[in-house]
């Protein structure tokens, strides 16, 4: 039974790390900060080894610090002049127009269809003029 309890705790920790991964990405931070939660495992282990009375509360130390810091630190994606193209949170392949507010993007469509690059320049594909 203690094994089941430990596995459930590990699953909850994994889910929490994944959630923090998304939250930190949204707010413009490096997502790898979410792995700080793994320090909770270290603290739990050490408090168990030394039979510390804080064993029960040990898993909550790191999340508490992270939440307090996150609440009061500036969020990079909310900063004016933040370049989303440089942020891994907004990294995308191909054309990326997320650097503009949706309302300010005149080319935004509900269902953007495929447009060949040559058609943007007025050229027709497969037809080339032969010089005689």
């Amino acid at each position, binding site marked *: 039974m203690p094994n089941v309890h430990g596995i459930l705790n590990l699953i*909850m920790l994994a889910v929490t790390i994944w959630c923090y*991964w998304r*939250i930190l990405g949204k707010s413009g931070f490096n997502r790898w900060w979410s792995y700080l939660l793994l320090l909770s495992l270290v603290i739990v282990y050490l408090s168990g080894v030394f039979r510390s009375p804080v064993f*029960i509360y040990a898993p*909550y130390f790191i999340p508490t610090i992270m939440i307090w810091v996150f*609440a009061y630190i500036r969020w990079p994606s909310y900063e004016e002049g933040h370049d989303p193209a440089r942020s891994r949170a907004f990294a995308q392949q191909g054309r990326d127009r997320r*650097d503009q507010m949706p309302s300010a993007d005149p080319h935004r469509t509900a269902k953007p269809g495929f447009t060949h690059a040559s058609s943007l320049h007025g050229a027709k594909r497969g037809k080339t003029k032969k010089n005689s």
Partner: protein
Amino acid sequence: MHLIVGSLIFALVVIYPLLRIYRRAGMPWWPAMVIFIPIIGPPITAYLLAMSRWPSHPFGR
């Protein structure tokens, strides 16, 4: 019993900055109250924040 007490103490310590985070994200305050559910409350709160669209986000995420 100790787990429930620890979880509730954690919720009391964290509820104020959590409300601030929800407010900064533009979300209503009441989903933050889920954190008072013992043991599974904190992951659910993080899940709600992670999966919701943040209304005040500059890029609509």
